[in-house]
């Protein structure tokens, strides 16, 4: 089996497993969305509402687990993720549609950016091992050990305020309507800077370290010595020989760690009240909104899978050894 076929089989299997876990977990959860809704309202909603909610959410019917599973799979294939409970009766897909662009825009871009910048810095530091650049290593280690949310909170405390350029929450100024006009885009950018910066700082640190270590390892490979022996310029040796090879494990590491990153940035969304998927998931969990939880989890998993796939393809492009002729 070729490498790619194998990977595709793996993706299908994982997607199936994710979907199944997705199905099972909410069903293992005690408590139900109606109770959760009532509980959350803390007396703001009368207990008479309970009955109407059961009827509304369609929780008054019984079906066997297997039946449910297959109807769930069937729905998925039709792209139907059900109706959200917290935003009832908005379809989950619509709720996700609201959150996804923000997550992709913020988390997606900064994650990739963090990877790129971190890798670039790591390349430099690893190459210049023994120079002043090494002093950055303890700093990076420390920064990478700080939890995302704490960094975010400190950033909010220090940098935002009534007169500050940085807003403390949200994705754009209240009152603006998403529209591709300069005012809106400017506002989105302004709101994105702090969360993006937080993600960048803490995700970059990890990449710096791993890339630096790979560079150190690769720098003593024979082909790097050969490249020096060939009299190539330092830049060429660093980029074309050392970094090019050091990158390979980092790329697959990147793919694999996406799951962790998505988890981590969820906190940034919570701390910065950024209206992305993470915040939605967080709220869905609190509200026992299984359909929404399932939806968010599915989206996150699938996008992690997709990103993994892209990373695999990138790896394939970067490492000729995985490419087999025939």
């Amino acid at each position, binding site marked *: 089996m070729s490498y790619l076929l194998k990977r595709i089989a793996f993706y299908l299997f994982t997607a199936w497993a994710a979907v199944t876990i997705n199905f099972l977990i909410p069903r293992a959860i005690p408590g139900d969305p109606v109770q959760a809704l009532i509980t959350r309202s803390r007396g703001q909603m009368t207990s008479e509402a309970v009955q109407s909610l059961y009827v509304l959410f369609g929780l008054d019917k019984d079906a066997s687990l297997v039946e449910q599973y297959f109807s769930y799979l069937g729905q998925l294939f039709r792209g139907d993720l059900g109706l959200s409970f917290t935003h009832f009766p908005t379809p989950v897909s619509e709720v996700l549609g609201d959150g996804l662009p923000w997550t992709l825009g913020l988390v997606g871009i900064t994650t990739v950016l963090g990877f790129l910048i971190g890798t670039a810095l790591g390349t430099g530091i690893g190459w210049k091992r023994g120079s002043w650049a090494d002093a950055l290593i303890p700093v990076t280690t420390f920064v990478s050990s700080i939890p995302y949310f704490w960094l975010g909170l400190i950033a909010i405390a220090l940098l935002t305020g009534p007169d500050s350029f940085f807003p403390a929450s949200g994705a754009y100024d209240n009152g603006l309507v998403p529209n591709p006009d300069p005012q809106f885009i400017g506002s989105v950018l302004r709101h994105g800077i702090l969360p993006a910066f937080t993600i960048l700082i803490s995700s970059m640190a990890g990449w710096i370290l791993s890339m630096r270590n790979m560079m150190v390892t690769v720098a003593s490979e024979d082909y790097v010595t050969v490249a020096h022996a060939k009299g190539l*310029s330092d830049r060429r040796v660093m980029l074309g*020989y050392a970094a090019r090879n050091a990158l390979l494990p980092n790329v697959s590491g990147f793919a694999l760690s996406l799951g962790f990153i998505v988890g981590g940035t969820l906190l940034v969304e919570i701390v910065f009240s950024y209206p992305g998927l993470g915040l939605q998931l967080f709220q869905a969990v609190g509200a026992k909104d299984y359909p929404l939880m399932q939806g968010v989890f599915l989206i996150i998993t699938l996008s992690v899978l997709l990103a993994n796939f892209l990373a695999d393809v990138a790896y394939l492009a970067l490492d*000729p050894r995985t490419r087999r002729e025939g």
Partner: protein
Amino acid sequence: MTDAVLEIRGLNVDYGLGDEAVHAVRDVDLTLHRGEVLGLAGESGSGKSTLAYGLTRLLPPPGVIASGEVLYHPDGGDPVDVLRMTLPELRRFRWAETAIVFQGAMNSLNPVHRISSQLTDVIKAHDPRSTPASRLARARELLRLVGISADRLDSYPHQLSGGMRQRVMIGMALALEPKVVIMDEPTTALDVVVQRQILRQLVELRERLGFSVVFITHDLSLLVEFSDRIAIMYGGRIVEEAASADLYRDPLHPYSHGLLNSFPALRGPKRELTGIPGSPPDLRAMPSGCAFHPRCPHAMERCGVEVPVLGTPGDVHPGHDAGENAPADRTVACWLHPVHDDGL
């Protein structure tokens, strides 16, 4: 010696600094002449590779060159000291004047670049004005030179067999027509048939292009067959240096003697194989005096005290084939054959 291309003078190479330093190469003096193949033999760990990398300053940390000079004599120019070169000078010098073929060809080629780009980037680095087409043509020519069809240009290293990779490296070494090619155990990973093919090609090319070769291996029979002169290393020092036929016929140093008596011959009458008793020295705790004396069957008291100096043996050792054939460039470092002290 006017025809020298590379003169190594008093080279000392250490691994590490200060007290922890391992002196891997000690006081090595060696001259490479134009157009010759100089064999470098010796036990594992005797410092052969260290010497080769040291003289091109390619030793990885913690290797440092403690002292010495490496004089390169360009065609018709003044000699330059490689160890005094600035980095840009060194970069220009490398490959254009001295190319190295490393021990493992699999590891010498960058696994993620095509053969073609690895062949052309060295040309580009040294001749930025060359055109891509001309570089590619040169790469094709180089492959042909080492007996690989040009359609392999687009291959990645992992798609070539070990022998082919080794040949690519040899081809690459010749890309800029250097004056010196250093080869560090280029064929140990190959079987004898392929090994012979490659070496034959190399000898042919040398005759055509006229470069000098430093050839490192511990396969003495191979060295004797292929090189003009052989230097034997032991414990970081050159202990004997002679024309290969002389060395084979008449090794002066007891260690060379032992080496020659350690490998079985394929032809001729079965020789008695004696080997060398004992084990190689620990570089961190070198025996005093001659490093070989604990293993030497002829060790004298002096051997354990004083380090013998490498020089033309002053005595004509009875029983050896001396006479007019004992050439001036034959040197040995052994108290059995004290240096001819004309200077004193």
